[in-house]
């Protein structure tokens, strides 16, 4: 949510530059991703925090993580010159192998949360407001 929020309030050109560095998409898709992905991150984050549409949000998060993992993995395999140089801005920046490990762990956690959705929903808005709704 924080990551998405920071991107949506900043000029989209900053995130476009990050996407271009991965040399993963064609220019049109890069532009679309630069505009849409931050909002997707932001809203998925909000819904996860609130526990609203939790199962769908977890699926959305898993989908985003798969995309990020693909992008990072191919960047590593192709030895793209994406260094942990702060050239991606003043916020946190990690080496690509660390990002791969972190996102993989996050993906596994997301999977576990989805698999154990009843427990995951325990303090969610879904559970509180809509007790009888099946996950």
């Amino acid at each position, binding site marked *: 949510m924080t990551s998405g929020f920071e991107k949506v309030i900043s000029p989209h050109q900053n995130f476009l*530059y990050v996407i271009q560095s991965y040399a993963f998409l064609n220019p049109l898709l890069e532009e679309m991703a630069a505009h849409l992905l931050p909002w997707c991150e932001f809203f998925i984050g909000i819904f996860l925090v609130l526990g609203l549409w939790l199962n769908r949000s977890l699926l959305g998060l898993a989908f985003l993580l798969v995309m990020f993992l693909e992008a990072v993995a191919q960047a590593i395999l192709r030895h793209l010159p994406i260094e942990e140089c*702060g050239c991606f801005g*003043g916020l946190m920046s990690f080496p690509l192998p660390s990002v791969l490990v972190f996102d993989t762990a996050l993906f596994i956690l997301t999977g576990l949360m989805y698999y154990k959705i009843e427990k995951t929903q325990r303090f969610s808005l879904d559970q509180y407001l809509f007790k009888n709704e099946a996950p």
Partner: protein
Amino acid sequence: MADKRSQVSAKIKITIIVVVLSVAVVLGVKSLKAFVKGSVQANISARVKGDKKAPVHITEFIDFECPACAEGARHIKKFMTEHPPTVYLELKYFPLSSHRYGLLSAQYAECAGRQGKFWPFHDYLIERQANWKRLAHAAPAFEQIAQDVDMNLEILSQCLKDTSVTESIQKDRQEGDTLGIKSTPTYYINGKMVVGAASLGTELNKYVQEAGH
């Protein structure tokens, strides 16, 4: 069944409220930032090149240790050579804290500018970037560049101790922060923000096609 339908309907209403509130917060923050932001300030220092009446004005925020900045600099140089009267270029410093020599290289470049040698010094910094950025101490490499562009080393030494040099660099950095710059190179091409060498190339090509050059 009716109960379930009303639950789903209530859930959708809450979702819409959450979405609208979130968008309102984002737009509010963006409006506040735009209000504070202002525009790119004109540069009256030695860090300008080309004819001020040229149709393409480029303001570049640069970190000399950034590889993409080096690529962008080469691209702009080539473009200015191929389309000589079309570009007016201004450079501003945006040293990144994660670059060991970002600030130091900017200090040397600023001092070179005060001796009227900014662009030759800039060109050597870009050309030799791959070498000096790997060094344990880059200052000797910058001193060598200073000699190569025939700077007065005594004046350079005094200049490097002058606090106004760092103030000048920090002023550019703060301007960049206010504009929302996060990465280098960031260009403003006729006021339009463009980040990275790839987008720079696309934007310049667009100009060439539109102008029929």
